[in-house]
């Protein structure tokens, strides 16, 4: 327990960065890219490139599910029962 502070300080910021990138930044980024591609003319983004971007978005979109993962982990962490 004496080293609890150390463990938190050692790992928390990396966790915060991961959550911020994958759970906050990425979902909005992918939505906005999709919206942009929906309106963008092929002279701006070629048809083949558009298809390629959509495929990449489809593959990488799953990473935004990390917020659900974190939320479930947090809920499980707080589910503490002490019995005597």
């Amino acid at each position, binding site marked *: 327990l004496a080293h609890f502070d150390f463990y938190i300080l050692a790992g*928390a910021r990396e966790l915060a960065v991961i959550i911020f990138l994958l759970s906050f930044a990425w979902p909005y980024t992918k939505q906005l890219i999709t919206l942009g*591609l929906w309106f963008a003319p092929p002279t701006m983004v070629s048809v083949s490139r558009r298809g390629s971007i959509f495929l990449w978005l489809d593959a990488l979109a799953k990473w935004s599910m990390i917020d659900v993962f974190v939320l479930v982990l947090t809920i499980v962490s707080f589910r503490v029962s002490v019995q005597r």
Partner: protein
Amino acid sequence: MHSGEQTNQFLAFSDVFNLQCWLATLEAPALDSRGVATGGNVSFMVTDFVASVVDLALNVSCIDCSSTRMPELSELWLKLDDSKDLTNIASNLFNLASKLVEGDFLQVAVDRALNDARKLCPHSLQYDPNFVKPAYDTFDTDDQEETYQFFITLLIVVACLGAVVSVVILAIRFIVHRRHRKWLASLPQSQLLKLWEQQNKQRDVELWLNAETAPLFSSNVIPCWVRWLMPVIILGNIALFLSGHLSLGASVSVMLQVGGQILEEENFFAFSMAKSTVEIWKGKFLSWPPLLSVDELIGSF
């Protein structure tokens, strides 16, 4: 307990019951702007605080209880006496108190009190009837510096990773390009011509496609209602994400059952994704160790 030099301050008989005057008889260390003794000068300090419990017994008897299980709780306390668990808990608490008493927190408070005492004792030469306790500077933390160091480390790691990935990509491209050239060199002239024509045609088709194809929003191939519905869905999705991130994500309720009596605290701790991330970043999860200390005490049962 250690006490340093005494001052030339004498204690008047009328001040016997005045604590400030007793404190004024002790040498007050010089303080810096934060109210901390400078140069390690200490005139009064608690060097060692020892307290121990040999045996602790707790006898709980119910005088007026609504719960029918309170007698069971009394029996439980009696059982704890046998196992010396209560004595262990009391020892743990005294150890915690010892650490607090011998630590810097109490020392700073003592040093400040010694400095204030001279101004508060009526028969002191430095007595000031209008004395107001000084406002000391707050203690600086090196959080900012840590943040910068962390960002610099993060940038270096990302830059190194980017450099490695770039080198790998360039190497792969170079190898593929060299193989492709070797393959082209092995082909006869007629086949090379056919391949060149085929590539030109493909490029023309792509250029034509880009020139003639409309954006997805105005494409005639896609039904009109889909064209209009898709942006609405995307914007709605963004709104849902915003709502999910900013509103209540989860809440912790505490339900404590003591002797059949239920004590419930709804929404003991509520958090959202955005709030949690900010708190993790600020390291506010450090506020949990006191709770874990309580858990540790309970665990010693």
